[in-house]
């Protein structure tokens, strides 16, 4: 285990400015009342939120709209791959749930049958410098999803906010590259450990969820859902996309664009058939994908407990609440099944 290094809070900005000379540094910024990541330009004082950043990191690795090739119909009809951005970058101030989201995207884009070269490039050029959370936000429930506000999985460097100091520790070889600085001093001290309470949205196991596929509860769970796509766009682990050619006067780009299983168009096939015409079937797909399919495919449920789906929902509906309600129903069913009928008991 690498040693802790401490840095005075007042020195952090100087340290980051120094890093920005060599790297493209991304930090959380407040834009129109929402926290999102942007490139550090030194114009504003560094301010790091203690818990959830409103906009997930997904867009930095797998952008909403991503040109993968260009073409020109007027000259030779050929696709030219888009050359990837190579400049090394640092993302500083992300939280454990953000890192967990990236860990899941790695499984989808790097460790499965099909490798996504552009995602791989974004991953390789990035050093993830995660900040452990000091508190849990109103909608945070990572403790119900196998994480804690101080999980360091998938980070290259982790740091802790404590009193007048930040405690830094590198976790990978990549992370070591940013630890050489006059501002960071090696220390035998370490940050204090926190106890975290369980959240309010505990859920059943993936196998139990799978058994609910044909249950009638999906109509109840989807009754007021608009089936718009905003929860899937906000989700750090919703990675479905569509491919489209966008052209103007014969010149154009082949792009991947975020798609959403909540929209009716998602499941429409050639010939006009639609396999998920009802809101219930679409809500079921998303719920089971988060809590069951992902586990079957990649060995980990894909919900990281960040709570962004609650924050963005136009109807203030709570997706985790829906998972919890479903789990409740699973337990009810289990009880009904195991209950010995009164008569046979007497015999």
């Amino acid at each position, binding site marked *: 285990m690498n040693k802790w290094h401490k840095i005075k809070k007042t020195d952090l900005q100087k340290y980051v400015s120094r890093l920005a000379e060599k790297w493209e540094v991304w930090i959380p910024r407040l834009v129109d009342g929402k926290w999102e990541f942007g490139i550090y330009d030194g114009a504003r004082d560094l301010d790091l939120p203690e818990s959830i950043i409103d906009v997930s990191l997904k867009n930095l690795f797998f952008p909403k709209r991503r040109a993968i090739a260009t073409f020109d119909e007027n000259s030779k009809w050929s696709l030219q791959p888009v050359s990837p951005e190579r400049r090394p970058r640092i993302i500083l101030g992300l939280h454990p749930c953000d890192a967990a989201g990236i860990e899941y995207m790695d499984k989808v884009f790097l460790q499965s049958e099909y490798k996504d070269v552009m995602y791989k490039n974004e991953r390789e050029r990035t050093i993830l410098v995660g900040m452990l959370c000091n508190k849990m936000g109103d909608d945070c429930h990572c403790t119900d999803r196998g994480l804690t506000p101080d999980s360091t999985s998938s980070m290259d460097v982790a740091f802790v906010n404590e009193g007048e100091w930040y405690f830094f520790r590198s976790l990978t070889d990549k992370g070591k590259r940013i630890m050489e600085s006059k501002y960071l001093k090696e220390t035998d001290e370490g940050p204090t450990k926190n106890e975290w309470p369980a959240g309010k949205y505990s859920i059943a196991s993936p196998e139990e969820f799978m058994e609910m596929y044909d249950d009638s509860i999906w109509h109840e769970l989807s*009754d007021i859902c608009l089936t*718009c*796509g905003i929860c899937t766009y906000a989700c750090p682990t919703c990675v479905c996309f569509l491919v489209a050619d966008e052209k103007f006067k014969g010149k154009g780009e082949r792009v991947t664009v975020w798609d959403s299983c909540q*929209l009716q*168009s998602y499941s429409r096939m050639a010939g006009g058939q639609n396999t998920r015409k009802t809101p219930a079937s679409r809500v079921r797909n998303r719920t089971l994908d988060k809590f069951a399919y992902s586990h079957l495919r990649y060995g980990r449920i894909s919900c990281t407990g960040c709570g962004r789906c609650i924050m963005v929902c136009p109807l203030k509906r*709570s997706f985790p609440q829906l998972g919890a309600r479903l789990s409740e129903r699973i337990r009810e069913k289990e009880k009904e099944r195991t209950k010995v009928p009164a008569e046979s008991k007497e015999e």
Partner: protein
Amino acid sequence: MKELRKKIKELFENGEVDAVLGYREDPATGGVKAAVFKKDETLDDMVFDGRCIQNLVNYLPTLVARYRKVGVVLKGCDGRSLVTQLVEHRISKSQIIALGIGCEGVEIDGREAEKCGDCATHMSPVADYEFGEKEEKKEPTFARVEEIEKMSPVERWKFFADYFAKCERCYACRQICPSCYCEICIADQQEPKWIEPSAKLSANTMWHLIRAYHLAGRCADCGECERVCPQDIPLRLLNNALEKAVHEMFGVRPGTVPEEVPPLVVLNKDDPDRILEGKNE
């Protein structure tokens, strides 16, 4: 509220409705949620107050397919929405019991909603039963639209472009709109692909303008599209502009008169023809 609950109970007992669509207290958020009340279910947590901003009419087509007869709690603006659905034959009145409530305005995050400021319809134009006060009708002002009309085309474009650029294409506006019910939305059509799927200014502008035009003479100004927009795009403004144009040209405000056919689907010899007369700017 007491009267409303009593009436609903009575309707259930007489078998006049199988389900009632209304608002339920939601302790988890401190707000209210749309809810379907069925016979023998408690009505104690049914509420109607300033928090009940959601237009429930959009849920009706699904509900009437599942239940024989459905009661629905309606504010004035929701009543207008219901009229638009009835005249377009999306729902049959025979399946609906309309419970109109005299609305004193609803709020978003504790502040009175903008749409209530120039509301001219406090009671649903179609109501089988009416509850609460019924205020006098007044003429709409369209003050916000007039402000935009004063801008130069360049300013106006900048005003909207800044908003359209932020659109994420989540389609919440479409999904909550009672009048957006195309079998296949133009944004989802593949051949020809009218609107590119990616969230960029040109495609977003296409999407919002096409949607606004499709609602001309049909939109009843419930303002839900603007309320649910995660990026706070002033979508109601687009619809208001067209509502104003339709009002000036045909003297019609969609949804205010039951059984009035939408002006853009009929041809009258008295209809203005500003384009042919060369009077259009």
